[in-house]
Protein backbone atom coordinates (compact mmCIF):
# COMPACT_ATOMS: atom_id res chain seq x y z
CA UNK A 1 0.00 0.00 0.00
CA UNK A 2 1.36 3.35 -0.98
CA UNK A 3 -0.03 6.82 -1.25
CA UNK A 4 -0.17 8.33 -4.71
CA UNK A 5 2.05 11.33 -5.26
CA UNK A 6 0.11 14.18 -6.89
CA UNK A 7 3.18 16.37 -7.08
CA UNK A 8 3.97 19.94 -6.16
CA UNK A 9 0.47 21.36 -6.57
CA UNK A 10 1.47 24.84 -5.43
CA UNK A 11 4.80 25.72 -6.97
CA UNK A 12 6.56 28.84 -5.73
CA UNK A 13 10.07 27.86 -6.85
CA UNK A 14 11.99 31.17 -6.67
CA UNK A 15 13.69 31.08 -10.08
CA UNK A 16 10.75 29.65 -11.95
CA UNK A 17 8.31 32.49 -12.01
CA UNK A 18 9.25 36.13 -11.73
CA UNK A 19 5.70 37.03 -10.80
CA UNK A 20 5.83 34.68 -7.83
CA UNK A 21 4.71 36.55 -4.73
CA UNK A 22 5.78 33.97 -2.21
CA UNK A 23 9.11 33.10 -0.69
CA UNK A 24 8.37 29.66 0.80
CA UNK A 25 4.86 28.22 1.16
CA UNK A 26 5.06 26.23 4.39
CA UNK A 27 2.74 24.24 6.59
CA UNK A 28 -0.21 23.76 4.18
CA UNK A 29 -3.49 23.51 6.11
CA UNK A 30 -6.51 22.56 3.94
CA UNK A 31 -10.20 23.12 4.61
CA UNK A 32 -13.01 21.66 2.53
CA UNK A 33 -15.31 24.28 0.96
CA UNK A 34 -17.15 21.89 -1.41
CA UNK A 35 -16.04 22.51 -4.97
CA UNK A 36 -13.03 24.29 -3.65
CA UNK A 37 -10.31 23.32 -1.19
CA UNK A 38 -8.69 26.28 0.50
CA UNK A 39 -5.16 25.79 1.83
CA UNK A 40 -3.70 28.23 4.34
CA UNK A 41 0.08 28.39 4.38
CA UNK A 42 2.89 30.56 5.70
CA UNK A 43 5.41 32.36 3.58
CA UNK A 44 8.37 34.48 4.58
CA UNK A 45 9.06 38.18 4.34
CA UNK A 46 12.08 40.03 5.72
CA UNK A 47 11.73 42.55 8.53
CA UNK A 48 13.74 45.79 8.83
CA UNK A 49 16.67 43.83 10.30
CA UNK A 50 16.69 41.36 7.43
CA UNK A 51 15.29 38.54 9.56
CA UNK A 52 12.39 36.38 8.45
CA UNK A 53 8.80 36.87 9.51
CA UNK A 54 6.30 34.13 8.64
CA UNK A 55 2.97 35.44 7.42
CA UNK A 56 -0.22 33.61 6.53
CA UNK A 57 -1.74 33.42 3.04
CA UNK A 58 -4.15 31.05 1.35
CA UNK A 59 -4.68 29.52 -2.05
CA UNK A 60 -7.85 27.85 -3.31
CA UNK A 61 -7.82 24.76 -5.51
CA UNK A 62 -10.46 23.20 -7.70
CA UNK A 63 -11.25 20.16 -5.61
CA UNK A 64 -11.04 17.48 -8.30
CA UNK A 65 -8.20 18.68 -10.53
CA UNK A 66 -6.29 20.36 -7.67
CA UNK A 67 -5.49 23.31 -9.91
CA UNK A 68 -4.98 26.65 -8.12
CA UNK A 69 -7.86 29.07 -8.71
CA UNK A 70 -7.44 32.05 -6.42
CA UNK A 71 -4.85 33.43 -4.00
CA UNK A 72 -5.36 35.71 -0.99
CA UNK A 73 -4.70 39.33 -1.87
CA UNK A 74 -4.72 41.06 1.49
CA UNK A 75 -3.20 40.20 4.83
CA UNK A 76 -5.02 37.15 6.23
CA UNK A 77 -4.05 37.73 9.87
CA UNK A 78 -1.82 40.40 11.42
CA UNK A 79 1.27 39.54 13.43
CA UNK A 80 1.27 40.51 17.11
CA UNK A 81 2.47 43.80 18.54
CA UNK A 82 5.79 44.42 20.32
CA UNK A 83 6.61 41.78 22.93
CA UNK A 84 3.71 39.42 22.13
CA UNK A 85 3.92 35.69 21.42
CA UNK A 86 3.33 36.02 17.66
CA UNK A 87 5.35 39.14 16.99
CA UNK A 88 7.79 37.40 14.63
CA UNK A 89 5.63 35.01 12.71
CA UNK A 90 2.62 32.75 12.42
CA UNK A 91 3.45 29.24 11.24
CA UNK A 92 1.40 27.11 10.93
CA UNK A 93 -2.13 28.52 10.94
CA UNK A 94 -4.66 25.76 11.61
CA UNK A 95 -8.23 26.61 10.57
CA UNK A 96 -11.35 24.69 11.55
CA UNK A 97 -15.00 25.18 10.66
CA UNK A 98 -17.20 24.91 13.72
CA UNK A 99 -20.78 26.04 14.30
CA UNK A 100 -20.74 27.82 10.89
CA UNK A 101 -17.73 29.85 11.96
CA UNK A 102 -14.08 29.78 11.00
CA UNK A 103 -11.69 29.48 13.94
CA UNK A 104 -7.95 29.81 13.40
CA UNK A 105 -5.26 28.47 15.70
CA UNK A 106 -2.11 30.53 15.60
CA UNK A 107 1.31 29.02 16.13
CA UNK A 108 3.03 32.26 17.09
CA UNK A 109 6.80 32.84 17.03
CA UNK A 110 8.78 35.23 19.17
CA UNK A 111 12.56 35.53 19.09
CA UNK A 112 14.76 34.94 22.10
CA UNK A 113 18.36 35.94 22.67
CA UNK A 114 20.14 32.75 23.79
CA UNK A 115 18.03 30.21 21.94
CA UNK A 116 16.59 31.52 18.70
CA UNK A 117 12.88 31.41 19.41
CA UNK A 118 9.94 30.26 21.43
CA UNK A 119 6.37 29.58 20.31
CA UNK A 120 2.89 29.66 21.84
CA UNK A 121 -0.61 28.98 20.52
CA UNK A 122 -3.42 31.53 20.22
CA UNK A 123 -6.97 31.71 18.86
CA UNK A 124 -8.31 33.88 16.02
CA UNK A 125 -11.84 34.27 14.67
CA UNK A 126 -12.51 34.40 10.94
CA UNK A 127 -14.86 36.60 8.94
CA UNK A 128 -17.97 35.03 7.37
CA UNK A 129 -16.06 33.27 4.58
CA UNK A 130 -12.82 32.59 6.44
CA UNK A 131 -10.68 34.73 4.18
CA UNK A 132 -9.56 37.02 6.99
CA UNK A 133 -8.98 36.54 10.73
CA UNK A 134 -8.63 38.59 13.88
CA UNK A 135 -7.09 37.33 17.09
CA UNK A 136 -9.33 37.12 20.14
CA UNK A 137 -6.64 38.63 22.33
CA UNK A 138 -3.04 39.80 22.47
CA UNK A 139 -1.91 36.77 24.46
CA UNK A 140 -1.82 33.00 23.85
CA UNK A 141 -4.33 30.35 24.93
CA UNK A 142 -1.64 27.68 25.32
CA UNK A 143 1.93 28.39 26.37
CA UNK A 144 4.78 27.01 28.48
CA UNK A 145 3.80 25.19 31.68
CA UNK A 146 5.64 23.40 34.47
CA UNK A 147 6.27 20.23 32.44
CA UNK A 148 6.23 21.71 28.95
CA UNK A 149 8.82 24.45 29.33
CA UNK A 150 8.98 26.01 25.85
CA UNK A 151 8.09 25.76 22.15
CA UNK A 152 4.35 25.12 22.36
CA UNK A 153 3.30 25.09 18.70
CA UNK A 154 1.95 23.29 15.64
CA UNK A 155 -1.70 23.14 16.79
CA UNK A 156 -4.08 20.74 15.06
CA UNK A 157 -7.62 21.11 16.40
CA UNK A 158 -10.54 18.76 15.80
CA UNK A 159 -14.01 18.64 17.32
CA UNK A 160 -14.58 14.94 18.08
CA UNK A 161 -16.93 13.11 20.43
CA UNK A 162 -18.35 16.32 21.89
CA UNK A 163 -15.03 17.93 22.76
CA UNK A 164 -12.32 19.95 21.14
CA UNK A 165 -9.02 18.10 20.87
CA UNK A 166 -5.71 19.72 20.13
CA UNK A 167 -2.58 17.92 19.09
CA UNK A 168 0.46 20.13 19.31
CA UNK A 169 4.16 19.99 20.06
CA UNK A 170 6.12 20.98 23.15
CA UNK A 171 9.88 21.42 23.44
CA UNK A 172 11.83 19.07 25.68
CA UNK A 173 15.40 20.26 25.19
CA UNK A 174 17.61 22.86 23.57
CA UNK A 175 20.98 21.21 22.89
CA UNK A 176 24.20 23.10 22.33
CA UNK A 177 25.83 22.66 18.94
CA UNK A 178 29.53 22.73 18.06
CA UNK A 179 29.27 26.35 16.88
CA UNK A 180 27.64 27.54 20.16
CA UNK A 181 24.17 27.64 18.71
CA UNK A 182 21.25 25.58 19.94
CA UNK A 183 19.05 22.98 18.25
CA UNK A 184 15.62 22.00 19.55
CA UNK A 185 13.93 18.70 20.26
CA UNK A 186 10.16 18.55 20.56
CA UNK A 187 7.45 15.93 20.94
CA UNK A 188 3.72 15.64 20.36
CA UNK A 189 1.21 16.38 23.13
CA UNK A 190 -2.58 16.42 23.48
CA UNK A 191 -4.98 18.91 25.09
CA UNK A 192 -8.77 19.00 25.37
CA UNK A 193 -11.30 21.81 25.67
CA UNK A 194 -15.04 22.42 25.92
CA UNK A 195 -14.97 25.80 24.21
CA UNK A 196 -11.94 25.67 21.93
CA UNK A 197 -10.20 28.40 23.94
CA UNK A 198 -9.56 27.12 27.47
CA UNK A 199 -7.41 24.00 27.27
CA UNK A 200 -6.67 21.24 29.77
CA UNK A 201 -3.57 19.09 29.49
CA UNK A 202 -4.38 15.82 31.26
CA UNK A 203 -1.14 14.34 29.95
CA UNK A 204 1.00 17.48 30.42
CA UNK A 205 4.63 16.82 29.62
CA UNK A 206 3.98 13.29 28.34
CA UNK A 207 4.64 12.63 24.68
CA UNK A 208 1.83 10.60 23.12
CA UNK A 209 3.82 9.18 20.21
CA UNK A 210 6.91 7.06 20.94
CA UNK A 211 10.17 8.34 19.45
CA UNK A 212 12.50 6.12 17.43
CA UNK A 213 15.47 7.55 19.36
CA UNK A 214 16.28 10.23 21.96
CA UNK A 215 17.26 12.79 19.37
CA UNK A 216 14.04 12.50 17.38
CA UNK A 217 12.11 15.77 17.02
CA UNK A 218 8.44 15.27 16.13
CA UNK A 219 6.34 18.01 14.57
CA UNK A 220 3.08 19.02 12.89
CA UNK A 221 0.64 16.34 14.06
CA UNK A 222 -2.58 16.04 12.07
CA UNK A 223 -5.45 13.77 13.10
CA UNK A 224 -8.58 12.57 11.32
CA UNK A 225 -11.28 10.09 12.22
CA UNK A 226 -11.40 7.23 9.71
CA UNK A 227 -14.37 5.48 11.27
CA UNK A 228 -15.86 4.86 14.69
CA UNK A 229 -13.02 4.10 17.12
CA UNK A 230 -10.37 4.47 14.46
CA UNK A 231 -8.25 7.62 14.35
CA UNK A 232 -5.28 8.27 12.13
CA UNK A 233 -2.40 10.66 12.82
CA UNK A 234 0.39 11.81 10.59
CA UNK A 235 3.31 13.94 11.71
CA UNK A 236 6.88 14.55 10.65
CA UNK A 237 10.08 13.75 12.47
CA UNK A 238 13.77 14.50 12.10
CA UNK A 239 17.00 14.27 14.02
CA UNK A 240 17.85 17.10 16.43
CA UNK A 241 21.14 17.66 14.58
CA UNK A 242 22.18 17.67 10.95
CA UNK A 243 18.64 17.70 9.59
CA UNK A 244 19.17 20.61 7.20
CA UNK A 245 22.00 19.11 5.17
CA UNK A 246 21.87 15.36 5.76
CA UNK A 247 19.01 13.51 4.02
CA UNK A 248 19.22 10.67 6.50
CA UNK A 249 18.49 13.06 9.34
CA UNK A 250 15.97 15.26 7.50
CA UNK A 251 12.23 15.32 8.07
CA UNK A 252 10.25 12.22 7.15
CA UNK A 253 6.59 11.40 7.58
CA UNK A 254 5.40 9.32 10.52
CA UNK A 255 1.98 7.86 11.29
CA UNK A 256 0.04 6.35 14.17
CA UNK A 257 -3.43 4.95 14.85
CA UNK A 258 -5.65 5.04 17.91
CA UNK A 259 -9.02 3.63 18.93
CA UNK A 260 -9.59 5.97 21.90
CA UNK A 261 -7.60 9.16 21.20
CA UNK A 262 -5.41 8.32 24.19
CA UNK A 263 -3.25 5.33 23.26
CA UNK A 264 -1.47 5.67 19.92
CA UNK A 265 0.31 2.94 18.03
CA UNK A 266 3.04 4.18 15.74
CA UNK A 267 3.20 2.71 12.25
CA UNK A 268 5.12 4.89 9.81
CA UNK A 269 4.41 2.46 6.97
CA UNK A 270 0.85 3.78 6.86
CA UNK A 271 2.11 6.93 5.18
CA UNK A 272 4.57 5.42 2.71
CA UNK A 273 4.60 7.10 -0.70
CA UNK A 274 6.77 7.19 -3.81
CA UNK A 275 8.80 10.33 -3.52
CA UNK A 276 10.01 12.18 -6.57
CA UNK A 277 11.96 15.33 -7.38
CA UNK A 278 10.08 17.68 -5.03
CA UNK A 279 10.05 15.32 -2.07
CA UNK A 280 13.05 13.01 -2.44
CA UNK A 281 15.20 14.67 0.22
CA UNK A 282 12.65 15.68 2.82
CA UNK A 283 8.93 15.31 3.64
CA UNK A 284 7.51 17.56 6.30
CA UNK A 285 4.63 19.59 7.75
CA UNK A 286 1.78 17.22 6.76
CA UNK A 287 -1.92 17.99 7.15
CA UNK A 288 -4.82 15.65 6.35
CA UNK A 289 -8.15 16.25 4.64
CA UNK A 290 -10.89 13.74 3.95
CA UNK A 291 -12.52 14.47 0.59
CA UNK A 292 -15.17 12.21 -0.93
CA UNK A 293 -13.68 8.70 -0.76
CA UNK A 294 -10.09 9.85 -0.49
CA UNK A 295 -7.71 10.99 2.17
CA UNK A 296 -5.55 13.87 0.96
CA UNK A 297 -2.26 14.73 2.64
CA UNK A 298 -0.83 18.19 2.00
CA UNK A 299 2.82 18.65 2.86
CA UNK A 300 6.12 20.30 2.11
CA UNK A 301 8.96 18.48 0.44
CA UNK A 302 12.59 19.44 0.00
CA UNK A 303 14.01 22.57 1.65
CA UNK A 304 11.14 22.99 4.13
CA UNK A 305 8.76 24.31 1.48
CA UNK A 306 11.01 26.77 -0.33
CA UNK A 307 9.47 25.60 -3.60
CA UNK A 308 5.89 25.35 -2.38
CA UNK A 309 3.78 22.43 -1.23
CA UNK A 310 2.53 19.21 -2.70
CA UNK A 311 -0.07 16.57 -2.05
CA UNK A 312 -0.28 12.80 -1.79
CA UNK A 313 -3.54 10.85 -1.63
CA UNK A 314 -4.98 7.42 -0.91
CA UNK A 315 -8.37 5.72 -1.12
CA UNK A 316 -9.90 5.89 2.32
CA UNK A 317 -10.92 2.24 2.13
CA UNK A 318 -7.33 1.21 1.46
CA UNK A 319 -6.04 3.23 4.38
CA UNK A 320 -8.68 1.82 6.72
CA UNK A 321 -7.94 -1.77 5.80
CA UNK A 322 -4.21 -1.20 6.21
CA UNK A 323 -4.70 0.56 9.52
CA UNK A 324 -6.59 -2.48 10.79
CA UNK A 325 -3.94 -4.99 9.78
Amino acid at each position, binding site marked *: MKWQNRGLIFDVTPQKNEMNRFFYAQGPQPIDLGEVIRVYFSSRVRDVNGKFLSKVNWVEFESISHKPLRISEREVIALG*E*LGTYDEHGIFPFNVIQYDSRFIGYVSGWSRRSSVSVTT*SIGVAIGNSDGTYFEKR*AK*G*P*CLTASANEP*FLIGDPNVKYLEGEFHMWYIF*GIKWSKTADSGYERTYRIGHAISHDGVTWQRPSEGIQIIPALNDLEAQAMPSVIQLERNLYFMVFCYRNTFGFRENHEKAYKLGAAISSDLIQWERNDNLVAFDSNSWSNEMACYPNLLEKEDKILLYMNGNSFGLNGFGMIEIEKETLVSNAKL
Partner: protein
Amino acid sequence: MARWRKIGLLFDISKILNRPEWFFEYTQAPNVVDMGDFLRIYFSTRGRRDTSGNYVSLSTFVDLKSIEPLVIKEVSFDPILDLGEPGCFDEHGIYPISVLRETNRFLGVYGGWSRCESVPFDVAIGLASSVDGRKFSKHGTGPILAANEMEPFVIGSPKLRFFKDKYYLTYIAGREWTIENGRPEIYYKLRMASSENCIEWKRFDKDIIADRIGPREAQACGDIFEKNGNFHMWFCFRNHVDFRENRINSYRIGYARSENLIDWERMDIELGLDVSETGWDSQSVSYPNVFSFRDQIYMLYLGNHIGRNGFGIAKLSGELE
Protein backbone atom coordinates in the same frame (compact mmCIF):
# COMPACT_ATOMS: atom_id res chain seq x y z
CA MET B 1 -3.94 57.22 63.07
CA ALA B 2 -1.06 54.97 62.17
CA ARG B 3 1.96 56.18 60.22
CA TRP B 4 5.34 54.92 59.10
CA ARG B 5 8.51 56.08 60.82
CA LYS B 6 11.64 55.44 58.78
CA ILE B 7 14.52 53.87 60.66
CA GLY B 8 17.07 53.88 57.81
CA LEU B 9 19.16 51.55 55.71
CA LEU B 10 19.00 48.16 57.42
CA PHE B 11 21.09 45.94 55.18
CA ASP B 12 24.02 47.67 53.50
CA ILE B 13 25.54 45.47 50.79
CA SER B 14 28.87 47.31 50.91
CA LYS B 15 29.41 46.01 54.45
CA ILE B 16 29.15 42.37 53.36
CA LEU B 17 32.75 41.48 52.57
CA ASN B 18 34.15 38.76 50.32
CA ARG B 19 30.93 38.34 48.40
CA PRO B 20 30.93 35.82 45.55
CA GLU B 21 30.87 37.05 41.95
CA TRP B 22 27.14 36.49 41.47
CA PHE B 23 26.48 38.64 44.59
CA PHE B 24 28.14 41.75 43.19
CA GLU B 25 25.56 44.48 43.52
CA TYR B 26 21.95 45.12 44.52
CA THR B 27 19.75 43.54 47.17
CA GLN B 28 16.30 43.62 45.67
CA ALA B 29 12.76 42.70 46.68
CA PRO B 30 13.30 41.61 50.31
CA ASN B 31 10.77 39.10 51.66
CA VAL B 32 10.71 38.02 55.31
CA VAL B 33 10.04 34.58 56.75
CA ASP B 34 9.64 34.22 60.52
CA MET B 35 11.93 31.36 61.58
CA GLY B 36 10.89 31.41 65.21
CA ASP B 37 13.92 32.68 67.06
CA PHE B 38 15.30 34.56 64.09
CA LEU B 39 14.17 36.28 60.92
CA ARG B 40 15.12 35.20 57.41
CA ILE B 41 15.05 37.78 54.63
CA TYR B 42 15.16 36.46 51.08
CA PHE B 43 16.33 38.92 48.44
CA SER B 44 17.73 38.99 44.92
CA THR B 45 21.14 40.20 43.82
CA ARG B 46 23.05 40.66 40.57
CA GLY B 47 26.42 39.59 39.26
CA ARG B 48 28.68 41.88 37.25
CA ARG B 49 27.49 42.93 33.82
CA ASP B 50 29.10 41.10 30.91
CA THR B 51 30.61 42.85 27.89
CA SER B 52 27.15 43.16 26.32
CA GLY B 53 25.85 44.87 29.46
CA ASN B 54 23.81 41.86 30.52
CA TYR B 55 23.65 40.57 34.06
CA VAL B 56 22.03 37.66 35.85
CA SER B 57 19.88 37.89 39.00
CA LEU B 58 19.99 35.19 41.66
CA SER B 59 18.34 35.00 45.06
CA THR B 60 19.72 34.32 48.51
CA PHE B 61 19.00 35.28 52.12
CA VAL B 62 20.24 36.94 55.29
CA ASP B 63 19.27 35.73 58.78
CA LEU B 64 18.80 38.33 61.53
CA LYS B 65 18.83 37.68 65.26
CA SER B 66 17.53 41.15 65.94
CA ILE B 67 16.39 44.22 64.01
CA GLU B 68 16.83 46.90 66.65
CA PRO B 69 19.76 46.80 67.00
CA LEU B 70 20.69 44.98 63.79
CA VAL B 71 22.36 41.65 64.58
CA ILE B 72 23.16 39.49 61.55
CA LYS B 73 23.31 35.77 62.16
CA GLU B 74 24.33 34.68 58.67
CA VAL B 75 24.47 35.86 55.08
CA SER B 76 24.14 32.96 52.67
CA PHE B 77 26.72 32.83 49.89
CA ASP B 78 24.90 30.00 48.15
CA PRO B 79 22.01 30.90 45.80
CA ILE B 80 18.75 29.26 46.87
CA LEU B 81 17.81 28.34 43.29
CA ASP B 82 19.78 27.68 40.12
CA LEU B 83 19.06 29.24 36.75
CA GLY B 84 17.02 27.27 34.22
CA GLU B 85 18.36 25.32 31.26
CA PRO B 86 18.74 27.00 27.83
CA GLY B 87 15.37 28.16 26.52
CA CYS B 88 13.63 27.88 29.90
CA PHE B 89 11.67 30.81 31.33
CA ASP B 90 14.21 31.28 34.15
CA GLU B 91 17.39 30.97 32.09
CA HIS B 92 18.63 34.50 32.80
CA GLY B 93 17.39 35.42 36.24
CA ILE B 94 15.53 34.47 39.40
CA TYR B 95 13.97 37.63 40.80
CA PRO B 96 12.11 38.12 43.06
CA ILE B 97 11.28 35.17 45.31
CA SER B 98 8.49 35.11 47.90
CA VAL B 99 8.64 32.28 50.43
CA LEU B 100 5.89 30.81 52.61
CA ARG B 101 6.87 28.67 55.57
CA GLU B 102 4.60 25.68 56.19
CA THR B 103 4.80 22.93 58.79
CA ASN B 104 7.09 20.62 56.85
CA ARG B 105 8.28 22.67 53.92
CA PHE B 106 9.02 26.06 52.47
CA LEU B 107 7.19 27.05 49.28
CA GLY B 108 8.70 29.71 47.04
CA VAL B 109 7.23 31.47 44.03
CA TYR B 110 9.63 33.40 41.87
CA GLY B 111 9.92 35.49 38.75
CA GLY B 112 11.98 33.71 36.07
CA TRP B 113 13.59 35.92 33.42
CA SER B 114 14.56 35.18 29.86
CA ARG B 115 16.08 37.61 27.41
CA CYS B 116 14.31 38.38 24.18
CA GLU B 117 15.23 40.04 20.92
CA SER B 118 12.71 42.82 20.25
CA VAL B 119 12.08 43.61 23.91
CA PRO B 120 14.73 43.10 26.60
CA PHE B 121 13.00 40.34 28.56
CA ASP B 122 9.98 38.22 29.31
CA VAL B 123 9.04 36.93 32.76
CA ALA B 124 6.92 34.02 34.03
CA ILE B 125 6.35 32.67 37.53
CA GLY B 126 7.84 29.43 38.80
CA LEU B 127 7.25 27.33 41.93
CA ALA B 128 9.93 25.76 44.10
CA SER B 129 10.01 24.02 47.45
CA SER B 130 12.57 23.33 50.14
CA VAL B 131 12.89 21.34 53.34
CA ASP B 132 15.23 23.75 55.13
CA GLY B 133 14.55 27.02 53.29
CA ARG B 134 18.19 27.23 52.19
CA LYS B 135 18.20 25.32 48.91
CA PHE B 136 15.08 25.00 46.79
CA SER B 137 14.12 22.56 44.05
CA LYS B 138 11.82 23.48 41.19
CA HIS B 139 8.39 22.17 40.39
CA GLY B 140 9.04 21.30 36.74
CA THR B 141 11.32 23.05 34.30
CA GLY B 142 8.59 25.46 33.15
CA PRO B 143 6.41 28.09 34.84
CA ILE B 144 3.25 27.58 36.88
CA LEU B 145 1.89 30.95 35.79
CA ALA B 146 2.68 32.35 32.36
CA ALA B 147 1.07 34.47 29.66
CA ASN B 148 -2.55 33.92 28.70
CA GLU B 149 -4.99 35.71 26.42
CA MET B 150 -5.60 38.67 28.73
CA GLU B 151 -2.10 38.75 30.23
CA PRO B 152 0.10 38.58 27.13
CA PHE B 153 3.61 38.90 28.64
CA VAL B 154 5.78 39.70 31.67
CA ILE B 155 4.02 37.74 34.41
CA GLY B 156 6.18 38.52 37.42
CA SER B 157 6.71 40.10 40.85
CA PRO B 158 4.91 37.27 42.69
CA LYS B 159 4.02 37.25 46.40
CA LEU B 160 2.63 34.12 47.99
CA ARG B 161 0.25 34.12 50.96
CA PHE B 162 -2.09 31.63 52.65
CA PHE B 163 -5.33 32.96 54.16
CA LYS B 164 -8.05 30.78 55.66
CA ASP B 165 -8.09 27.80 53.29
CA LYS B 166 -6.42 29.02 50.13
CA TYR B 167 -3.18 30.20 48.63
CA TYR B 168 -3.21 33.70 47.20
CA LEU B 169 -0.80 35.11 44.69
CA THR B 170 -0.35 38.76 43.88
CA TYR B 171 1.63 39.29 40.72
CA ILE B 172 1.99 41.65 37.79
CA ALA B 173 1.00 41.27 34.17
CA GLY B 174 2.58 43.40 31.45
CA ARG B 175 0.07 45.52 29.59
CA GLU B 176 2.04 47.16 26.79
CA TRP B 177 5.55 47.64 25.47
CA THR B 178 6.15 51.02 23.85
CA ILE B 179 9.23 52.47 22.19
CA GLU B 180 10.54 55.55 24.01
CA ASN B 181 13.59 57.24 22.51
CA GLY B 182 14.40 54.02 20.70
CA ARG B 183 14.16 51.89 23.81
CA PRO B 184 11.32 49.48 24.71
CA GLU B 185 9.59 50.42 27.97
CA ILE B 186 6.85 48.47 29.69
CA TYR B 187 4.08 49.11 32.18
CA TYR B 188 2.33 46.40 34.16
CA LYS B 189 -0.60 46.07 36.52
CA LEU B 190 -1.15 44.26 39.79
CA ARG B 191 -3.26 41.11 39.46
CA MET B 192 -4.28 38.27 41.80
CA ALA B 193 -4.99 34.56 41.65
CA SER B 194 -5.99 31.90 44.18
CA SER B 195 -5.25 28.20 44.43
CA GLU B 196 -5.96 25.13 46.54
CA ASN B 197 -2.63 23.45 45.85
CA CYS B 198 -0.27 26.26 44.80
CA ILE B 199 0.10 24.64 41.36
CA GLU B 200 -3.16 25.30 39.50
CA TRP B 201 -4.15 28.94 39.83
CA LYS B 202 -7.49 30.61 39.23
CA ARG B 203 -6.88 34.17 38.11
CA PHE B 204 -9.12 37.02 39.24
CA ASP B 205 -8.87 38.41 35.69
CA LYS B 206 -8.90 42.03 36.77
CA ASP B 207 -6.61 44.87 37.77
CA ILE B 208 -6.89 44.95 41.53
CA ILE B 209 -5.46 48.41 42.22
CA ALA B 210 -6.89 51.55 40.60
CA ASP B 211 -4.43 53.78 38.74
CA ARG B 212 -3.48 57.03 40.42
CA ILE B 213 -1.04 58.65 37.99
CA GLY B 214 -2.77 57.72 34.74
CA PRO B 215 -3.50 54.65 32.63
CA ARG B 216 0.19 53.94 32.05
CA GLU B 217 1.04 53.74 35.74
CA ALA B 218 3.32 50.73 36.31
CA GLN B 219 2.54 48.79 39.50
CA ALA B 220 4.53 46.03 41.21
CA CYS B 221 5.15 44.09 44.42
CA GLY B 222 1.66 43.64 45.92
CA ASP B 223 2.47 42.75 49.53
CA ILE B 224 -0.53 41.69 51.62
CA PHE B 225 -0.55 41.85 55.42
CA GLU B 226 -3.50 40.54 57.44
CA LYS B 227 -4.49 42.19 60.69
CA ASN B 228 -7.69 41.50 62.64
CA GLY B 229 -9.45 40.04 59.60
CA ASN B 230 -8.67 43.02 57.39
CA PHE B 231 -6.23 42.90 54.51
CA HIS B 232 -3.70 45.63 53.90
CA MET B 233 -1.64 45.81 50.75
CA TRP B 234 1.48 47.82 50.10
CA PHE B 235 2.85 47.97 46.59
CA CYS B 236 5.00 50.26 44.48
CA PHE B 237 4.11 52.26 41.40
CA ARG B 238 5.92 54.52 38.97
CA ASN B 239 5.50 56.41 35.77
CA HIS B 240 5.76 54.43 32.53
CA VAL B 241 8.85 56.33 31.29
CA ASP B 242 11.79 58.36 32.63
CA PHE B 243 11.60 56.69 36.02
CA ARG B 244 15.20 55.55 36.47
CA GLU B 245 16.85 58.87 37.33
CA ASN B 246 13.96 61.32 37.57
CA ARG B 247 12.72 61.63 41.14
CA ILE B 248 9.27 62.79 40.00
CA ASN B 249 8.63 59.67 37.91
CA SER B 250 10.32 57.03 40.02
CA TYR B 251 8.77 54.50 42.38
CA ARG B 252 6.60 55.38 45.38
CA ILE B 253 4.93 53.00 47.80
CA GLY B 254 1.13 52.93 47.73
CA TYR B 255 -1.43 51.39 50.05
CA ALA B 256 -4.83 49.71 49.66
CA ARG B 257 -7.25 47.97 51.98
CA SER B 258 -9.71 45.13 51.51
CA GLU B 259 -12.09 43.02 53.54
CA ASN B 260 -12.42 40.19 51.02
CA LEU B 261 -9.09 40.15 49.09
CA ILE B 262 -11.00 40.90 45.89
CA ASP B 263 -12.11 44.53 46.16
CA TRP B 264 -9.35 46.92 47.15
CA GLU B 265 -9.67 50.55 48.11
CA ARG B 266 -6.55 52.54 47.32
CA MET B 267 -5.52 54.97 50.06
CA ASP B 268 -1.91 55.99 49.40
CA ILE B 269 -2.33 59.21 51.39
CA GLU B 270 -3.21 57.27 54.51
CA LEU B 271 -0.36 54.76 54.74
CA GLY B 272 1.80 54.98 51.64
CA LEU B 273 5.50 55.77 51.87
CA ASP B 274 7.13 58.71 50.12
CA VAL B 275 10.75 59.57 49.37
CA SER B 276 12.95 61.37 51.92
CA GLU B 277 14.35 64.87 51.41
CA THR B 278 17.89 63.55 51.29
CA GLY B 279 19.81 60.33 51.69
CA TRP B 280 19.61 56.75 50.46
CA ASP B 281 15.83 56.83 49.74
CA SER B 282 15.44 60.40 48.46
CA GLN B 283 14.80 59.53 44.80
CA SER B 284 12.68 56.43 44.94
CA VAL B 285 11.04 54.00 47.38
CA SER B 286 9.84 50.59 46.20
CA TYR B 287 9.34 46.84 46.76
CA PRO B 288 7.73 46.90 50.22
CA ASN B 289 7.43 43.86 52.49
CA VAL B 290 5.42 44.31 55.69
CA PHE B 291 5.72 41.89 58.61
CA SER B 292 5.28 41.63 62.32
CA PHE B 293 8.25 40.82 64.59
CA ARG B 294 8.18 40.88 68.36
CA ASP B 295 4.86 42.77 68.45
CA GLN B 296 6.05 45.50 66.13
CA ILE B 297 4.99 46.00 62.48
CA TYR B 298 7.85 46.79 60.09
CA MET B 299 8.25 47.49 56.42
CA LEU B 300 11.34 46.56 54.44
CA TYR B 301 11.74 48.58 51.25
CA LEU B 302 14.22 49.62 48.58
CA GLY B 303 15.57 53.13 48.11
CA ASN B 304 17.37 54.94 45.30
CA HIS B 305 18.31 52.87 42.23
CA ILE B 306 15.92 50.12 43.29
CA GLY B 307 18.13 48.38 45.80
CA ARG B 308 21.64 49.08 44.63
CA ASN B 309 22.80 49.98 48.15
CA GLY B 310 20.76 47.51 50.14
CA PHE B 311 17.36 47.68 51.75
CA GLY B 312 15.93 49.83 54.48
CA ILE B 313 13.31 49.59 57.15
CA ALA B 314 10.46 51.62 58.61
CA LYS B 315 8.21 50.83 61.54
CA LEU B 316 4.59 51.52 62.14
CA SER B 317 3.58 53.78 64.95
CA GLY B 318 -0.06 53.52 65.93
CA GLU B 319 -2.55 50.77 65.18
CA LEU B 320 -3.66 49.45 61.79
CA GLU B 321 -7.41 49.94 61.40
